[in-house]
């Protein structure tokens, strides 16, 4: 403040300083946001097509062998049952095997389909977490914090999948076959099994 308030550059300087400080703070914030986003992207770069393919393969690799083992056991039992009933070389037996084959194939399809869905679920989780981190980054504009948060999120996402035991759908198939045979033995026709069945060589349309 100079004489009689004249030449008062104090207010001008303060306003200039404040404006400059604001500009610098905003430039710093923007740089922080940019660097923070780069840190997040870097932490998430592992989630590429190969990663999701691996999720699919792991899922399929876990369930498909179980399914094949169940299927193989059930098929053997079915063939043994058919041989025991004398319908192995019959069109009824072929029909049964065909239905079994279809059930097994459908199960394979379901497992493979779920494997693809598992990868989709992971994609969704990744995208959702990444978006939340981006939004936080706008507020914090702190690359170090963004990097730490991203690493934590990646660690939480990239965990081993939780696999539930596979339901053995084939045992119920075998049971129903046994029930059909039992029903036939008790006089209910039409199943093509056992002593009440027609000749095994008969072709059932």
């Amino acid at each position: 403040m100079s004489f009689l308030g004249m030449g008062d550059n104090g207010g001008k300087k303060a306003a200039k300083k404040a404006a400059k400080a604001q500009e610098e703070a905003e430039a710093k914030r923007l740089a922080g946001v940019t660097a923070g986003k780069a840190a997040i992207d870097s932490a998430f770069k592992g989630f590429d097509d190969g990663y999701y393919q691996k999720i699919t393969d792991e899922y399929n690799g876990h369930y498909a062998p179980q399914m094949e083992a169940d299927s193989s056991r059930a098929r053997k039992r079915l063939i043994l049952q058919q041989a025991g009933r004398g319908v192995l070389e019959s069109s009824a037996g072929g029909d049964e095997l065909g239905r079994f084959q279809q059930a097994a194939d459908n199960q394979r399809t379901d497992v493979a389909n779920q494997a693809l869905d598992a990868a989709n679920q992971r994609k969704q989780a990744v995208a959702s977490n990444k978006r939340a981190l981006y939004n936080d980054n706008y507020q914090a504009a702190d690359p170090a914090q963004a990097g730490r948060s991203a690493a934590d999120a990646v660690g939480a996402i990239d965990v081993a999948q939780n696999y539930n035991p596979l339901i053995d759908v084939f045992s119920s198939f075998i049971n129903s076959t046994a029930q059909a045979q039992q029903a036939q033995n008790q006089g209910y026709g039409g199943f093509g099994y056992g002593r009440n069945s027609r000749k095994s060589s008969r072709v059932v349309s």
Partner: protein
Amino acid sequence: MPVLAIAAIVAALAAAAGGGLSAAQKQRAEGKIAETQQQQAADEIKRQDAYKQEAQKSLSDTLNQFQPDKQEKSLDDATTKRTDYLNQNLDSQDNSYVPTSASGPSVVKTEVAKKLSDALGASRGYAASTARLGARNDMALGDAMALGEGQDNLNAVADRAGGSLSLLAGKQKYAAARYAHQPGFAELLQMAGGAASSAAMSAQGGGGEGQVNYYGNPSPYARGNGGTLGGGV
């Protein structure tokens, strides 16, 4: 004419001149502030407009992915991809085993083979319909992710636009301070004139109660000619 009276006249003239100059300077300063602030606002509007266009382009790019033909292609691609995977999975299994003995009637073997072949066909049909359903989910996820990325882009532009806008107030405050009217020579003259005039009036015995100081406030300290506190006789 007494010297003091002349001084009073000169002071009055100076004050009048100073007042005139001061008003013009104030007007110029206010004009400069307004002009600068308007320019700053116009510049900011331009920047905001550029951000808006950037956001609109980003939005258009995102929405462009939702054109019916692109959606159709996206669904086709997803269906093909899923179908291939499911079929590949089916093909990897051995479905060739037909448990008929070599001695079995050929008609039965043919029939059993047909049953198994039909079963495989039905399985492929199931795989195809499953793939179509799954592909819808794939596409929905792809769409959701595309929308999310579009939202990310809009957020980024909005963030920069908001940051830019937040600086305007500070810039305008600085412009106001920078060009604010500073008391110059004219004001000095006016002030000096006012002071001299007061002094002259006091010297002429015009003091007393109601005497005002420079600031126009009643002054208990103003002295009249040979005066006493509060005015002479």
